């Protein structure tokens, strides 16, 4: 077994070396960029609400002191923006998104397809006896290396994100959570085994790569929509009290560490599913000038009984940052199940297809 694993790496040494350099280089680059950003020592108070450079973010850490003036923050923030907006910093951030797919496709496409293209499959399969075992060992060998390499990328991407938002624990925050950390590994595994399956079915490396790129693009682009709407809905909760939403003094700005799933409508603290236009027509008669007639001097909408009238409000529904690990575990499990399914397809197909 060790000989076969070693020879599998040796047989695919171009891919092995290229992806090892890419992943370890990216991990090193991510750590260097994170260190450079950390070395700026930007005062936390200058980073805006929640320590995030997202100025729309609400308070996350209660201990953060708001900046007392603009001037002391201009220089450090400019330095920070210059670094985070630089080409190398941006490139590293983008590579964290693409690395699992590049690695998975590069390892997966030639694993079976090249054997078929180069005519070595008839010999290998005649010697191996069991094609499933032959492929399983190769898949395990490459998947093991992939996990190690993407593990390094995963750690670096968390550190990178951590320095972008220094007051928030990256493992209690949904900021870019599906592009970093352990999700990197599972995206890579799914891309790898999916491409192995395509390579086994097509028997050609390039077509497998092309189709895999298209599938990965749509899978990645549609992931949040599907997972948020289907898998994470049962875990979600209201992130603000609906009863307080009508209070004009209540101002909920969700923190970047939370994951918003939807904005359900509430009226008087209860779910409401009516049509806003109809509601306006029924509850907000307008005068000839188009102004509401049932508004008091304070701008408060009044009902027909003269009492203040509540308006339907959208209430944030989602997950607090402290749900990070359950969510990551669930999404990783979904990706892993998909990866295993693709692996099973590859094992099924390799046993049935012709070796040429």
């Amino acid at each position: 077994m060790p000989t076969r694993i070693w020879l599998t790496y040796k047989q695919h040494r171009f891919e092995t070396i290229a992806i090892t350099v890419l992943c370890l280089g990216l991990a090193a680059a991510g750590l260097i960029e994170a260190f450079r950003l950390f070395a700026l020592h930007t005062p936390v108070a200058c980073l805006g609400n929640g320590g995030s450079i997202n100025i729309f973010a609400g308070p996350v850490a209660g201990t953060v002191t708001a900046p007392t003036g603009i001037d002391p923050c201009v220089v450090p923030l400019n330095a920070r923006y210059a670094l985070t907006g630089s080409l190398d910093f941006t490139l590293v951030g983008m590579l964290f998104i693409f690395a699992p797919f590049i690695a998975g496709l590069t390892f997966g496409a030639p694993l079976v397809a090249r054997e078929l293209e180069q005519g070595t499959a008839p010999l290998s399969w005649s010697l191996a006896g069991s094609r499933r075992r032959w492929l399983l060992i190769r898949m395990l060998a490459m998947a093991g290396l992939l996990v190690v390499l993407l593990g390094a990328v995963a750690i670096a991407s968390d550190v990178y994100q951590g320095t972008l938002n220094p007051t928030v624990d990256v493992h209690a925050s949904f900021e870019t959570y599906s592009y970093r950390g352990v999700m990197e590994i599972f995206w890579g595994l799914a891309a790898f085994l999916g491409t192995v399956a395509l390579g086994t079915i097509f028997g050609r490396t390039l077509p497998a790569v092309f189709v895999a790129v298209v599938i990965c693009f749509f899978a990645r682009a549609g992931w949040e929509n599907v997972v948020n709407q289907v898998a994470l809905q049962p875990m979600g909760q209201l992130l603000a009290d609906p009863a307080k939403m009508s209070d004009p003094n209540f101002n909920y700005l969700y923190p970047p560490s939370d994951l918003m799933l939807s904005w359900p409508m509430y009226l008087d603290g209860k779910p409401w599913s009516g049509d806003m236009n109809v509601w306006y027509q029924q509850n907000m008669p307008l005068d000839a000038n188009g102004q509401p007639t049932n508004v008091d001097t304070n701008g408060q909408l009044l009902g027909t009984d003269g009492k203040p009238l509540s308006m339907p409000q959208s209430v944030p529904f989602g997950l607090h940052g402290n749900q990070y690990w359950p969510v990551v575990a669930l999404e990783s499990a979904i990706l892993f199940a998909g990866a295993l399914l693709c692996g099973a397809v590859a094992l099924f197909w390799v046993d049935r297809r012709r070796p040429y």
Partner: protein
Amino acid sequence: MEADAVASGGAIAMAAHGLTKRFRSKVALDAVDLAVPQGSVTALVGPNGAGKTTLIRVCMAFERPNAGSVEVDGVNPWKHRGEALRRVGYVPQKPAVYGGLSVDDNLAMAKSLHSGFDIEYARRRLDQLAIPLDQKAGTLSGGQAAQLGLAVALGTRAKVLLLDEPLANLDPLARREFIQVLLDAVHSEGSTALLSSHIVTDVEDACDRLAILGGGKVKLDCLLEEARLNHRLTDADSPPVGATAVGSFLGKGGKKMMTLWRLAPNDTAGGSGADATGADATTLEDVVLGYLAAGRGTGLQLN
């Protein structure tokens, strides 16, 4: 024909019974019955498209037969693939070597894939041929790559060797070396070899049996010497007494049509030399051409 082989005594290493394989409307093998006796070196001869490769691929469980069955050392490869493949050493037409790996790595790969692979035996074989073990397989000459393929097949110590036109792309010297190594191994190990080729002269000296495949059917299956003795080639209209015409084809030089005759039983006196009817000495190539011409139904051009 299968019965002939069985009747000749000894066990059967590879047998096909009514084997049929179709690729959509094209029939590659048409109810083929064939038996390869143990310890024999059988030449599977036929033109391109005759079904030689398909027959071997069915034996390797690469193709599923539409009808009939095949057994390799008594095991049906389609039903018990792993067990059947353990008994077979396979040499494909195109040398199947990992070009990016060294020769020794190729042997190590074979060892890792096949538990019974005798790597030292394979190394010795290559060493005798002065093929460097540390050389990249992709840089080997065609003959050396073929020898590597053969060494891998022999290293399995399989009882049955299936060689799918391994000589097709080799120069004459490499062909001769390949056949010599194969014969040495077969005779010393007591294994059985089925060697497919469309070049008759390649197998004439190497094999003791001949199976001619044409149009998906077995045209002839007998000992090589029987093939020579039981046939006559003439240019005369009068056939040897009691003989049956097999096929006519244009003779060497392209000047006259020659006819191959199958002699009546017990009428093989005279050997392969010229006889009273004016028949030329019958070569194996004549026999093969006669049967292939019969399959085509028209005179066959001999180059």
